[in-house]
């Protein structure tokens, strides 16, 4: 990653507070965050540390209580629907829980067709659309013929996450925020999903913000790592530096949870807690 680094998504003083009064809950607490183009960034933290909340703010799905987000050097402006749509053409996400990520009333085609429409407007003919969908499904090892006319809940968790990747494949965004895309599925599918994400990254050259609670996984895939603890970023830096020479107690604890950190990573035998 020695090329010149162009900042593409930065946050400064990002804060999100849920509730008021006694129920006040600071989910994200003055986080400064920046990532550069073509990098893989990992945000690591235990459950409830505010990773998803941070991701949603970066995506523009929730409003930060405080703080600013800069997109490609400029202050992000998503004040109206049109600007939001433009923004979302360039930044996309894969959510944590595949089972609740799809509208159960729409067929799978609809999900992919939405993406085609978003990317290219409505210019394409039906045949061309099908070709694109087939290509996308092929990329993630799914049979389009089997998927068409099915509903999302008829798929397995792993298939759903691959469908999510197919979405991203069609949309070809500049930034992808992957929020624990593998936490709900079995180890074997995990490896496949990760492989696909990396393949996709290589193919369309996008920045990936990878959210996980597994610091080992972060070490395996990322250039830069951010460690999050109870809404704050406690440590950040290049993956090797952070993980091999952690400064924070919290980071050390996260690392000690992963026994195989210094050995060669073997995806097929990864065991997750």
């Amino acid at each position: 990653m020695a090329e010149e680094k162009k900042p593409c998504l930065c946050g400064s003083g990002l804060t999100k507070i849920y509730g008021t009064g006694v129920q006040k809950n600071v989910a994200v607490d003055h986080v400064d965050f920046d990532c550069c183009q073509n990098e893989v960034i990992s945000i690591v933290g235990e459950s409830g540390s505010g990773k998803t909340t941070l991701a949603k703010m970066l995506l523009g799905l929730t409003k930060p209580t405080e703080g600013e987000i800069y997109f490609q050097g400029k202050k992000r402006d998503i004040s109206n629907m049109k600007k939001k749509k433009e923004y979302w053409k360039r930044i996309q996400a894969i959510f944590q829980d595949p089972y609740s990520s799809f509208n159960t009333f729409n067929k799978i085609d609809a999900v992919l067709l939405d993406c085609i429409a978003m990317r290219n407007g409505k210019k394409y003919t039906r045949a061309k659309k099908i070709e694109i969908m087939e290509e996308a499904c092929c990329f993630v090892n799914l049979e389009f013929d089997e998927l068409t006319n099915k509903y999302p809940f008829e798929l397995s968790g792993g298939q759903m996450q691959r469908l999510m990747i197919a979405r991203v494949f069609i949309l070809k965004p500049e930034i992808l925020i992957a929020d624990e895309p593998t936490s709900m599925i079995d180890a074997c599918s995990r490896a496949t999903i990760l492989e696909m994400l990396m393949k996709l990254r290589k193919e369309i050259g996008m920045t990936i913000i990878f959210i996980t609670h597994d610091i080992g996984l972060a070490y395996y895939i990322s250039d830069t790592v951010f460690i999050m603890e109870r809404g704050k970023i406690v440590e950040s830096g290049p993956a090797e530096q952070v993980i091999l020479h952690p400064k924070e107690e919290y980071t050390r604890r996260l690392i000690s949870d992963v026994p195989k950190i210094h050995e060669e990573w073997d995806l097929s035998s990864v065991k997750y807690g």
Partner: protein
Amino acid sequence: MKTALQQVFHSRKFVTGFAIFMAILLTVFLYPLIIQDEPLAILGQGNFFPPGIYVNIYDSIHSKSYVLNLKDAASKRIGKILTDQSRQDIKEWLVSYGVPEDQIDINDTESLLSQWEENYDSSISLPGMTFAKQRYFQRLDESVNGLLSSEGVVISEVNQETGNLDQTNTIDQSEYVHINEVANVRILPLGTDNFGRDVLTELVKATGVSLKIGLIAGVVATLIGLTLGLLSGYVGGLVDDIIMFVTNLFTVIPSFVLLILISFSIGQDNRGATTIAVVIGLTSWVWTARAVRSQVISLRNRDHVNLSKLSGHSTAHIILNDILPYIASYVVMALILQVSSAILSEASLSILGLGPRTTEVPTLGLMMNWAMIYQAHILGKWWAYFPVIVVIALITFSMNLMNTGLDQVFNPTLRD
């Protein structure tokens, strides 16, 4: 959309409910085409005629007669009047008159009646007998009088010129008429009500009117509740605050009190069925709004909504496609509750005299009300109120079945 409709009609529950509901609707629409009576026309003089077939006596006399010699005709005739109860009563009278008890055999019709004829005198008042009882025995005497005779009945007409009675015909005991040849036969399947109106005709009309009231009120309430609930739930912020303020205002004032006040201020003359329906709808949307709002709030942060946003859909599109289907069965459920509660609200209003104008159309509520006021339930006149209850139950039952069926289609994960 098309496939959803197909799925709906594959659900057995929905189809059953739909069939019942359609049957009710069809009856409401087709019945007036066949029986063209005014639903509120007063047919009977007197109240609560029992259900059955009414044959015109005058027409029967003038119809062609057929002689049928049936063996058990006489005993049937006697049995109809001399029931076990009246035999007992006769014995009772005779005993207290002074006939020795062992001489009376209540199963021997002939001797019993001859003893009665010998001894009974309507002017005698036995000790300890109430006036009502006395009257009863007078009536009994009249009815058994001539019961054993095999003579026919003489029909006479007044001669207009002389003023004498001219015998025109005699009718033997073995003469019959064919019911189809009698000009006037009226079937009253559910008898008549307290005003002497045909209950069935009235009931069909009332069902139609009540359904209309229920549907209008339900749709009005659901539309208002749904719109406000969706807006306040999805948009949130200031919009939510304002809508919730109004909703809370309406919650604090009991809607029924509001309903009474509004109905009262409208005045008797302006209270058509539709007006009442709209008023009921305007006062009962609160719970729908609250329920929808809380559902929407739990839905709006779901990932599928987020995904839809990321796919560039507009707020309206998201509300219609990603929120509404998830609460559709909920809304239908609310609609059903609204419809049935509107039917009941109308009934309660009617009892207070604040329902639709009584002179125009019957409603299920008004029918119950009339039956209650005239004590049909105490007098055992079941046909005046029981069918009404059955119709109300059928309407709610069918709509609930439809709702369950819809639920299975709208929530595909419920299907197995």
